[in-house]
């Protein structure tokens, strides 16, 4: 593996720089859509960048009681994990940058790491609000993570492979089969709301209840990293969901068209997320857990069962 | 439901000290003044016979020699009965009506804080509306109390 192209991949395209830009663009689209659905003007296009730069220029305050190492490490670790996951997601061709058998599982676990970083960062900042936010983060994690995994793995079951490139390649051959996964798509979108901590599952940072939640004590660069992590996570998760559930046009198209199609698919998913977060009132944590286990998890289970059966029935 | 004229008639008929003293300022506004020791009797009679079940507020008045309280009570008929009692300035003791109107507690505390009434039978609670640090002998709504000149 040549060093220069690898570094280019990691740092510029489709690595850190592209991903950061894409994440920030995604945040802008989300905020703008949110605002326009509420009949507000919404932020100008540079607002997420301006917020990021402003946070970078602010002082980092670390509470006296906090564990300084973990407090500082967590934002970086979270961003790294989210960024790493990007390298394994196929974007506009069936081939991601790096690929091996089982990478879909790796991506899912890499996406879980930021959530744990939020939890640990909040927990070790020793603030009460952050402590409660952390506990809520973890409680939520248990509620949405299982349905999310089941939903994303069910197309893989149908494709008979644990490799993202092979899954997308399979659906290129059988484009119609992707329609069998619609239920899973819905489950994945709802679970993503929990993962990205958006209304109605924004309990870890419900500002009218627990101020800033997990991030109460974070400020300056560290907070900027956390915010960027969420942006990048949104991009990665949207790309993953689009690759798995909307796999059309991943091969045999000119690069520019394929890239535009990829962008459209990701924007569609961001649009769905924005719509859902605009549509609902915040649930209480008990209501959230109940909702996930009562409706979302069974739906994911049904999807998995259907795909297992289809696996045997379909040629 | 009683109307204004009936209320006047009924009050004057029941209590001889009110004869000819029930002032009807306009429709649905009845003003009476009763001796402090008969007040409870009048109030209970009004609640029983005149459909009074609602207390709007109490107004404390500083009338130089005496302090006075006006009880603004009404009912579903919409008539506001204003019962005034007078107590001596050097011994301004009134009896709480919180047993009849539980909502009244804060109004009575306000009388204590702002005008220096002594309310007997008031359930324990925080003072209202002045701050806990406010000196107990300063009663701002008394006429002889003047605020310090504000620095402008």
């Amino acid at each position, binding site marked *: 593996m040549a060093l220069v192209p690898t570094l280019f991949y990691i740092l510029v395209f489709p690595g850190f720089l592209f991903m950061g830009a894409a994440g920030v663009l995604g945040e802008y689209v989300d905020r703008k859509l949110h605002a326009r*659905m509420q*009949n507000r*003007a919404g932020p100008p296009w540079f607002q997420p960048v*301006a917020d990021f730069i402003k946070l970078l220029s602010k002082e980092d305050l670390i509470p006296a009681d906090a564990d300084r190492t973990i407090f500082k490490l967590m934002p970086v670790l979270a961003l790294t994990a989210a960024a790493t996951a990007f390298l394994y997601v196929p974007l506009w061709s069936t081939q991601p940058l790096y690929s091996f058998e089982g990478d879909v599982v790796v991506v899912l676990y890499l996406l879980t790491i930021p959530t744990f970083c939020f939890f640990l960062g909040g927990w070790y900042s020793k603030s009460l609000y952050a402590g409660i936010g952390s506990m809520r983060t973890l409680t939520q994690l248990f509620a949405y993570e299982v349905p999310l995994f089941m939903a994303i793995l069910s197309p893989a079951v149908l494709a008979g492979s644990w490799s993202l490139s092979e899954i997308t390649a399979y659906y290129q051959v059988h484009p119609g089969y992707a329609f069998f996964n619609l239920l899973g798509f819905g489950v994945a979108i709802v679970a993503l709301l929990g993962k990205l901590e958006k209304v109605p599952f924004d309990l870890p940072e419900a500002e009218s209840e627990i101020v800033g939640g997990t991030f109460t004590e974070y400020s300056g660069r560290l907070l900027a990293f956390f915010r960027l992590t969420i942006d990048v996570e949104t991009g990665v998760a949207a790309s993953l969901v689009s690759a798995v559930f909307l796999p059309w046009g991943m091969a045999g198209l000119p690069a520019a068209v394929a890239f535009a199609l990829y962008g459209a698919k990701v924007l569609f998913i961001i649009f769905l997320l924005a719509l859902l977060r605009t*549509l*609902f009132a915040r649930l209480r944590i008990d209501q959230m857990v109940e909702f996930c286990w009562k409706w979302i998890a069974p739906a994911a289970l049904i999807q998995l069962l259907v795909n297992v059966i289809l696996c045997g029935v379909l040629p | 439901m009683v109307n204004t004229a009936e209320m006047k008639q009924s009050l004057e008929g029941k209590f001889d000290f009110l004869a000819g003293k029930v002032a009807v300022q306009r429709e649905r506004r009845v003003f009476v003044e009763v001796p402090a020791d008969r007040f409870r009797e009048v109030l209970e009679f009004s609640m029983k016979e005149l459909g009074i079940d609602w207390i709007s507020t109490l107004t404390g008045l500083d009338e130089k020699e005496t302090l006075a309280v006006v009880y603004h009570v009404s009912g579903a008929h919409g008539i506001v009965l204003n019962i005034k009692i007078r107590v001596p300035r050097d011994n301004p003791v009134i009896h709480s009506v919180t047993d009849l109107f539980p909502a009244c507690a804060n109004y009575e505390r306000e009388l204590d804080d702002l005008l220096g009434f002594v309310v007997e039978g008031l359930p324990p609670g925080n003072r209202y509306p002045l701050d806990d640090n406010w000196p107990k002998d300063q009663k701002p709504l008394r006429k002889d109390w003047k605020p310090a000149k504000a620095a402008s």
Partner: protein
Amino acid sequence: MKLPGKMTGELLRHVLKTPATVHYPFVKVDMPDQFRGKILFIAEKCVGCKLCQKDCPANCIVINKVGDKRFEAVFELDRCIYCSQCVDSCNKDALETSPEYELASLDRASLHVVFHAPEAPPAASTPPAPPKVA
């Protein structure tokens, strides 16, 4: 069972509608003609009855006699509550409201407005525009 998401159609319709809000410091909303904004004083009409000074709830008007039948007005705009009672009280129409509403200032001295007597042109010091928010 009632399904959540009652407002979906409404939200989708609004994506394409013109927003109800404006980008404030760049786009300004005009106030109606009768808006009670900054008070203006027309020194030529003043006869020095001081009714405005007497009726002002905030005590923010002072009328000074500077010469024979010449009066100047001093307004403390940081105290003014913009009720325009002075305009109503004035029998000579020497006071009027203006729709100017951007009166916030970082400098309190700029809110001490003097309307000079007739000889000098009525020069009100205009407060600086509020700090622009990006």
